[in-house]
């Protein structure tokens, strides 16, 4: 079941078309990647979903209809522009933000210590926010995003300023939320995190959708038959079934001839007596797919 439906939304600011005909949906129990270069329209799309901006055309539905005051309390949002009240103690700041999400005082008193403990912030609860490191503030903001147990979570660059240990902590928390059936939109430039966390994604550039689908589906769509081999002996200059051989960091990238599958190529190499230490079918990384799709989009525009 879709918790968020974005249907053909467009938004223009003066001469800038920030978003044009963007559509996607986010289901319960999935992490959905909203990707794109800076200024591509991600934040505008999110603000339309959150009812901060009105779209010029199209519509966004959250939890089965237009946004309402009740639904706002069921959304957890971590914006790209991080913000906590700097001059107040962390626990007071989080208490206030949780109360605005409709949490009762007794629930806040019960849950806040648990979250502070989970994010390793108990010892810093009484400190003013401005006295905390960026990473700690980021974790504090994640508590504000999650403490009221939202059905929909929208997080923009959740791993910025986090060290590897805290990055893993946040990944685990997001995974937990997914297991609980939450619908999660994650915006990030860190493709490795998208690969390890997202179920589906949409790639946006210049306000329009360039690519959308499940991670496996996208990998399949962009995979090539190229293979990366590490040979035990020097490779011959020409190999039967191989169109091109390119050295790459002590390995070789082999491009098979038309119609030759990677499995066939391995067999052919063995038959030709090429001794191999490793053989790996090259799947383009999401980074590469991202760059390729964005550049193709620009070329089409030109």
């Amino acid at each position, binding site marked *: 079941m879709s918790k968020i439906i974005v249907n053909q939304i467009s938004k223009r600011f003066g001469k800038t078309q920030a978003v044009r005909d963007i559509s996607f949906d986010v289901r319960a129990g999935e992490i959905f990647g909203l990707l794109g270069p800076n200024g591509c329209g991600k934040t505008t799309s999110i603000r339309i979903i*959150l009812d*901060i901006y009105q779209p010029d055309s199209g519509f966004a539905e959250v939890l089965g209809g237009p946004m309402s005051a009740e639904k706002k309390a069921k959304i957890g949002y971590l914006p790209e522009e991080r913000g906590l009240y700097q001059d107040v103690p962390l626990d007071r700041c989080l208490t206030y933000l949780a109360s*605005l999400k409709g949490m009762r005082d007794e629930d806040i008193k019960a849950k806040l210590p648990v979250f502070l403990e989970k994010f390793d912030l108990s010892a810093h609860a009484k400190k003013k926010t401005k006295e905390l490191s960026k990473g700690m503030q980021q974790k504090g903001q994640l508590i504000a995003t999650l403490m009221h147990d939202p059905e929909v979570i929208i997080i923009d660059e959740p791993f910025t300023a986090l060290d590897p240990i805290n990055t893993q902590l946040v990944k685990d928390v997001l995974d937990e939320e997914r297991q609980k059936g939450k619908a999660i939109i994650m915006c990030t430039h860190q493709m490795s995190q998208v690969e390890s966390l997202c179920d589906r994604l949409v790639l946006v550039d210049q306000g329009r959708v360039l690519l959308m689908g499940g991670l496996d589906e996208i990998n399949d769509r962009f995979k090539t038959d190229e293979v990366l081999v590490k040979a035990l002996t020097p490779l011959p200059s020409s190999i039967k079934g191989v169109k091109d051989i390119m050295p790459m960091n002590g390995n070789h990238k082999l491009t098979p001839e038309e119609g030759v599958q990677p499995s066939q190529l391995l067999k052919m190499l063995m038959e030709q007596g090429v001794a191999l230490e490793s053989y790996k079918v090259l799947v383009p990384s999401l980074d590469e797919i991202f760059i390729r799709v964005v550049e193709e989009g620009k070329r089409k525009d030109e």
Partner: protein
Amino acid sequence: MNNILKVAKNEYTQHVFTKKFWVALMAVPLIFIFFGAISAFVGAKSVDTRPIGIVDQAGIITQTQKLDGKGGLFDMTIEFQGFKDEKAPKMGTEAGSLQGYVVIPEDYAENHTLTWYGNKQMTPEVQKALSGFIGQNLMAGLTIPNKERIEAGSVIRIESLDGSVQSSGDSWQRILIPAITGLLYFILVMGSGNYLLQSLVGEKENRTIEIMLTSVTPNEMMAGKIIGNIGVAITQLVSWVGLILIGALAFRSKLTFLSAIEISWATMGINLVFLMVSFIFTASLLAILGATMTETQEAQSVMGLMVFPVMIPFYFFVVIMNAPNGLFARVLSYIPFSNPLTMGLRMAFTKVATWEILLVLAVQVVFAGLMLWLAGKAFKVGMLQFEKKVSLISLLKKEARNA
């Protein structure tokens, strides 16, 4: 608790439950007391209270001097000492035990001329004390009808032609309520309005605004902030008034003039309504300005500029008092910045028609409502512009496009 009250409560506690607030709060009366005490001390020291010699050659001094004074805070009593001839007072003046002496010549009844001998000019305090003392002695023994009444002066009762405005006090009593209303408005704008502006720009500077907008509506946030900051201003005022009352109670025997003040609760109520409506207008205007700014320092500069429009009626205080139903005073009544003091003064010095009071109020409500609505709109767009300053015109244009 609804969101408006939650925002208001947070706004209030964030300001009031800090040491900084109370230090600033107490600093104002302490500074006043400090400078007042210095001024009083210097004033008291500058008045020469040494005795004055009287050489009465005319034989008119038959009554002893009353030394009880009037009981005012700074009333000084200067004692007159009688001498038979000039020798002793002259020596006393030279030695410094007397500040000087006065000779009442034999022909005083004809010439009405006294002669002051001293090393410095006769001060106004001495002149006043001497006049009273001579007058008292000249009238001694005479049967003058209503003598006490003449000495005490008359109470002048003031009434407008239709009898609607009545006052038996002096002018200063009549301007007291309007002046306090105007002052309250000034304090509200400079204190509470300033906190509001700082708070709104602070939301932007802290980047908390986007989180807030996913929890409350812009209007809820604005209303909460205005209410919270009015609460802050009321706390300030109550604290200051409390201190003034404590001071007044401590010195009540010296502040007898306070009992003469007459207060019309109905007029005060109308003044308060005008005050609150004008403040909502001003606060909303500040919110619109806050939406265009990115740093709290800019907000401080804007508050400096706000002093000018808020002070307008103070500059024209006398003009309004002299022609309360004149065109100028009427125009000022409709301008939200000058409305509280102008209307207060007009109602104190003339009969303002009920229809005009209602019309002025209606115009103020429309202005305030319009500004509040605009503030909510401008705020929604401008508050998410974190990096660059937004011009007011472009902000409103942007909103027009987004609406």
